[in-house]
């Protein structure tokens, strides 16, 4: 079981929140592994549980109303049942996280130099001066110009792209083995998005960091990911290498995601959105979570989609999907609708 190449293994992760309205099933039985130096993209709509699952991995879901079960192995050590103090020591050192909105994620009252130096000093016994030197080094590495002056800037004095570079510098400053990037480019301009992705790719190559990339942007996925986990309604619905997801997707929700990407070559005036809206996690549908929005559920006999949640089954050795449609049915539909590259 213990593959030395695996940095993170998540097994049967469940996260529930108790609220006044009832129990929110935010993450249901999600499993995945991340290999050293590789990138796993977790894709899904808002409320699909992708952020919550990674916060649980980081040990950042500490609210009294949250209940986490399952196993998370980081470098072979289980984290969910571990002493929170031990997990805290890993955080920011061996595993780090960057967030969607870098303006609100940086403290408005401290200079970026102070915030980076603080990250160094939590995990290393060095002086403030040494920590600041390390901070300056790292800021230069993520492409902040005039570091000598910028290091004394407050977050609000920087542009959005610069702020996200600062966040990346702060996350990578202790050379973590795993970086969880929660929608790192969502709040940024499109031109800046590309720069940030390039930066992440370069730094990943340099430090050999494994990345869990949380996003809803399939363009970002194609750019950076090695493997993709598609989440819907708190469950993993498809899991495959990135090529497979784009060339041979097996689950109607993934088809919907792919169809809703705007394409310049297509001679269409409108995009193809997925009809309906994501399920309420308070009250998940009885059968397949995606059934209420699925166009193909009538092709399955005995209303199976409305009654039983399909298993995550292997389509090929490294490709799993949840769907009641038979492989023949799926291939026919994909051929008809030109979903993925059907050669």
């Amino acid at each position, binding site marked *: 079981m213990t593959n030395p190449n695996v940095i993170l293994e998540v097994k049967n992760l469940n996260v529930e929140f108790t609220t006044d309205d009832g129990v929110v099933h935010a993450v249901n039985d999600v499993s995945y592994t991340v290999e050293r130096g590789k990138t796993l993209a977790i894709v899904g709509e808002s409320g699909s549980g992708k952020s919550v699952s990674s916060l649980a991995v980081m040990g950042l879901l500490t609210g009294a109303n949250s209940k986490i079960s399952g196993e998370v192995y980081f470098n072979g050590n289980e984290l969910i049942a571990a002493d929170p103090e031990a997990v805290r020591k890993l955080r920011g050192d061996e595993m780090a996280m960057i967030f969607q909105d870098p303006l609100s994620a*940086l403290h*408005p009252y401290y200079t970026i130099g102070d915030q980076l130096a603080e*990250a160094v000093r939590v995990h290393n016994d060095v002086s403030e001066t040494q920590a600041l030197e390390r901070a300056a080094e790292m800021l230069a590495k993520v492409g902040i110009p005039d570091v000598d002056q910028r290091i004394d800037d407050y977050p609000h004095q920087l542009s959005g792209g610069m702020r996200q570079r600062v966040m990346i510098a702060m996350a990578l400053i202790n050379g973590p083995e795993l970086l969880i990037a929660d929608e790192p480019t969502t709040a940024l301009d499109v031109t800046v998005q590309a720069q940030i992705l390039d930066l992440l790719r370069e730094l990943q190559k340099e430090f050999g960091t494994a990345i869990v990339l949380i996003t809803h942007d399939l363009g970002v996925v194609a750019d950076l990911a090695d493997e993709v986990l598609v989440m819907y309604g708190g469950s993993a619905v498809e899991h495959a290498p990135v090529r497979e997801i784009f060339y041979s997707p097996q689950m109607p929700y993934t088809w919907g995601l792919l169809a809703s990407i705007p394409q310049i070559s297509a001679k269409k005036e409108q995009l193809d959105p997925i009809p309906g809206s994501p399920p309420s996690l308070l009250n998940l549908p009885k059968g397949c979570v995606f059934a209420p929005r699925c166009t193909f559920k009538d092709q399955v006999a005995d209303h199976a989609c409305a009654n039983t949640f399909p298993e995550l089954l292997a389509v090929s050795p490294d490709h799993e999907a949840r769907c009641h449609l038979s492989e023949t049915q799926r291939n026919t539909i994909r051929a008809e609708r030109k979903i993925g590259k059907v050669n």
Partner: protein
Amino acid sequence: MFPYIVRRIFIMIFMLTILSIVTFLLFNAVPTDPARLTCGKTCTPEIVAANRIRLGLDQPLYTQYIDWIRGIFVGRTYGSGSATFDCATPCLGYSFRNGEEVTVLILDAVPVTMYLAVGAFLLWMLIGISSGIIAAKHHGKWQDRAIMGVSLVGYSLPVFFLGLLFLVFVIVRWNLLPYPDYASPFEDPVAFFQTMLLPWLTLAILYAAYYARLTRSQMLETMGEDYIRTARAKGLSERVVFRKHALRAGLTPIVTSAGLDLAGLLGGAVITEYIFSLPGLGRLAIGAVTDYDLPTITATVLIAAVFVIVANLIVDILYAAIDPRVRLT
């Protein structure tokens, strides 16, 4: 930072000018003849007419206003010839009811109100903020519920009720403290503390309750901020997250409230001073109102307004010092 302060000071001077004009018009809007008020029952029309000229009340309004303002800065001399009266700088007028320069009355009252306000302020900030922080730290647990419950009671008790309650029980019934008799802390510190203890508590309980709730909600809001999650993601211990990252940001808005509340009290805690017979600004103002002592009314209003405006300036400067985002504006 420096241009910011200079600009704020200019704005302050402008506001004070407007305020002095409004206060002055107030003086003239009262439906009595200020000259008539200068002498008692044995008044004759001749005395009133003479006093009117002597006080400059026969002059047009703007001249009176300029004389009044000039009096504040360089002092003024009432009357002419042999019957003159000098009012020293800063001259706020002459109170015929008290037979005293208004400035002297104010200067006697200000320290009393200041001791009352500052003492209560320190008490309530200490109690209010610390219990608010404890409540926020134990959000949802019994500590939180207990503090919030007690503070709701404290917040619901009006000053006149709480003050009277203290007076009746602690002093009259149980004789735990002597009857209030104000003495300067430099002359008789024991009497001073015995007199001030209950007024301090009366004000502090009300404000502490409010500040506990304010602090709690501010801290809870701050603890939900993204940068707190970032601080945790860095691996900082919960103690550092709370003290270094949450506390400073969470307490910033409280500076604003605290400055303005203190300033409001410095202008006179009318009810508390009245209940506990403290010869402060509030009681001076009330006495002046019931006696139609116009120069004193104007002066107390002006002083209270100056306190609020100056406090505003200090709060703004403090805010800029705490929150770097404010400095650019």
